[in-house]
């Protein structure tokens, strides 16, 4: 790609030379615009951060209270060295944003991670027209088709009810930031006790302190009598799977919430009782719709099935190319197949 273009791809991430600013850099930078607070996008060590205001609470929790952080609203323009930037809802998690950059009439959009379904907790995705579109492709294969979330949540509710009937604990696994808030809001009203692993608890409490409407949950480590877990719902991250930490919930049933659960082999590999196909990423059709809605002719494909999705777009007559990034490395390798 030409070095003179508005955004370029450096070894440390997506870079805007004109503004001298990095987007989601994976090495410390002078100025970093952060699409969202997941750890594969918001990394430690940059001097100045800029993000949507709803990302603030978690960015400070993860990167330190004292980071230099400027926040903006969706759609609010800001200028760096004459480049006009603005953030637009990506629908991925709370505060997640697409970054729009405009200079001399050329418009670029970096999606970070996104989904088109409105999860009811994060601001819903808005398409932004542009010339150059940098999209994720986590689920960029035509086998990934999400069912309406109502269907999935009905399944989860039914599973919890069955477990309660049997007097066993429901342990639900998913990413602490994003997935768990979505689950908590969607399962409400919670007419049974809910407990959380420390990782989930910390995120939830920080968001509650910051004023977001989430129910209070109790931390597992504070419960000394195991009988409280009987029939309860326990929220944990995938890293708890297969550790002795789980023993206290016996008897229990484990469900994992992730788009990867659409494929039986992925589900079976984890040896969880249930796999709920619930993702905060776009499925195949959503990716295609999103690309189409931008009107962009130049597409750059990052984390996921980059080569497949870019070849597909090329065959459809677009100019697409794949980008090697470090986004999303977690879920390709993590044994729990969570999504970031």
């Amino acid at each position: 790609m030409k070095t003179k273009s508005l955004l370029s791809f450096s070894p440390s991430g997506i870079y805007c030379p004109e503004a001298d600013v990095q987007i989601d850099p994976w090495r410390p930078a002078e100025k970093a615009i952060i699409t969202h607070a997941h750890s594969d996008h918001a990394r430690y060590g940059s001097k100045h951060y800029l993000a949507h205001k709803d990302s603030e609470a978690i960015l400070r929790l993860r990167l330190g209270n004292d980071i230099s952080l400027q926040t903006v609203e969706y759609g609010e323009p800001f200028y760096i060295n004459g480049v006009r930037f603005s953030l637009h809802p990506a629908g991925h998690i709370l505060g997640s944003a697409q970054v729009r950059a405009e200079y001399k009439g050329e418009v670029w959009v970096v999606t970070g991670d996104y989904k088109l379904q409105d999860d009811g907790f994060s601001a819903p995705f808005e398409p932004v027209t542009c010339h150059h579109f940098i999209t994720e492709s986590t689920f960029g294969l035509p086998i990934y088709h999400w069912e309406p979330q109502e269907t999935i949540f009905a399944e989860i509710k039914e599973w919890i009810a069955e477990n309660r009937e049997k007097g066993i604990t429901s342990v639900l696994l998913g990413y602490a930031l994003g997935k768990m808030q979505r689950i908590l809001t969607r399962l409400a009203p919670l007419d049974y006790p809910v407990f959380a692993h420390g990782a989930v608890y910390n995120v939830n409490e920080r968001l509650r302190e910051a004023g977001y409407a989430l129910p209070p949950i109790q931390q597992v480590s504070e419960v000394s009598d195991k009988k409280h877990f009987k029939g309860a719902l326990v929220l944990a991250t995938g890293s708890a799977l297969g550790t002795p930490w789980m023993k206290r919930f016996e008897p229990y049933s484990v469900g994992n919430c992730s788009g990867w659960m659409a494929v039986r082999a992925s589900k079976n590999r984890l040896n969880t009782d249930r796999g709920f196909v619930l993702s905060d990423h776009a499925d195949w059709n959503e990716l295609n719709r999103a690309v189409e809605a931008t009107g962009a002719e130049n597409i750059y494909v990052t984390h996921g099935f980059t080569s497949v999705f870019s070849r597909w777009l090329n065959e459809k007559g677009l100019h697409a190319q794949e980008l090697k990034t470090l986004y999303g490395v977690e879920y390709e390798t993590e044994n729990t197949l969570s999504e970031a």
Partner: protein
Amino acid sequence: MKEFADLLRNLDRNTKTLEKIKALKTYFSNASDEDKIWALALFTGRRPPRKIKTAQVREWAWEKAGIPEWLFAESYQHVGDLAETVALILPQHNSISQKSLHEWFAELETLKKADDETKKAYILKAWASLSGFELFVFNKLLMGSLRVGVSQTLVIRALSEMYDQEPSGMAHRLMGQWNPFDIRFDELIIQENTAQNPSKPYPFFLAYTIENHVYESISPLEWFVEWKWDGIRSQIIFREGQLFIWSRGEELVTDKFPELHQLAQHFPEGTVLDGEILCYADGHPLPFSTLQQRIGRKNITKKILQEAPVLFMAYDVLEWNGIDIREKPHEYRRSVLETYVAEFENDSIFKVSPLVSWNTMDDLSRLHNESRTYYAEGFMLKRKSAAYQTGRKKGDWYKWKVKPLSVDAVLVYAQKGHGRRAGLFTDYTFAVWKGEHLVPFAKAYSGLTDKEIRELDAFIKQNTVEKFGPVRTVNPLRVFEIGFEGIQQSSRHKSGIAVRFPRILRPRPDKYAHEADTLENLQNLLTVYGV
């Protein structure tokens, strides 16, 4: 078919035995007899032959999904299962089909002679009437083997509980040749057996791995010891003038072993023998690989008969003169074997597996260590008073194999390797549980494929907890089966145990870390095999 798909989904979801049995019972009490016989056929691996070429099904699927062939191939590679890939890429809609399992099979049967166009139209229509898991199950019936999360033993258990029969009798009913097109459910499962199919084998009795208390308690007065041969466990049946050979996998393999057919001339009517088929020459068994190669061949040529001749090594007699003698004590069956059956011994095709003679445990241990020189892979221990039972039962039959010994252990440390794999984490340390703690006991370098190494390398990078110099402490999540040649006490090791030539036998992605073995398991191996 919805009921059958629901059953499969329940079996898939429930990891616990009792839940699976409950699901099976629910299905077998609600489904129609016509469907039940098909379900049984599928659970026992009796799917009728394919009517449509897999390549055609693939092509129609990617065409219908509106994607190019290469994208289908990429998807298939990711999913790893053809029937599932097809179900996932097809347009999604609601299921409207009311067709039952046996109706689908009856219709598929009529396609056998249909032309391609008719077949295609039929399949597209079927796809449009099914969705989700039902669509997946249909595709499985169409082109795959249906491997479901349930063992035949569990199906037998559920049925025998439902119909109040002995599991061994139920297992026997399900064996041998039967076809869902021409037998009814009640004939197979419920009715008293009147005219039995002459080829029907008995369920095999299988041995457990030896346990500590067995070594401590066995005596030559109560136990037979035989060599454990490494071949194909089989049953030879001679009834109504015909000879049948069944492998343990319930496959009729009579045609694979023409040299054994002449045994028909010797056996009395109503003979069933349990034994091992071995490749055998110059008075001793040949390596299992020779037999495996022979099995792989389509045609048994003269050359193969010369290079890989087989012999039936008889262990047991289950039916003699038409009478089922499985309930008689082993000592009795053995005497029949030695007195009558041994008459047909013939060094080239038929032998009775000899007993190992021993007096003390010391004799036995020494002989066991020499197993390989006898071309055996260890011992079989059989209680003289035991009946011939069904399936894997504890208490009367044990196998005592020679090394490798193995345990399931958790990966705890990793270090980068050198040479060809420089830069990748290839040196691993494994641990077993001691209470809530993991105690490292072995380092292993080899045993994984390149692909597995790369995958593990990425896992290690993502799951590093601490770094000490070149060594990384890794989140204890991954379980591997670690094999070794010997085990001994060691004060230099934290675990108190040192193992010889440890290596990775295979990853165990099916196991949680807390399901790995304990230090106690290792100590047990030490008591048994330690030097």
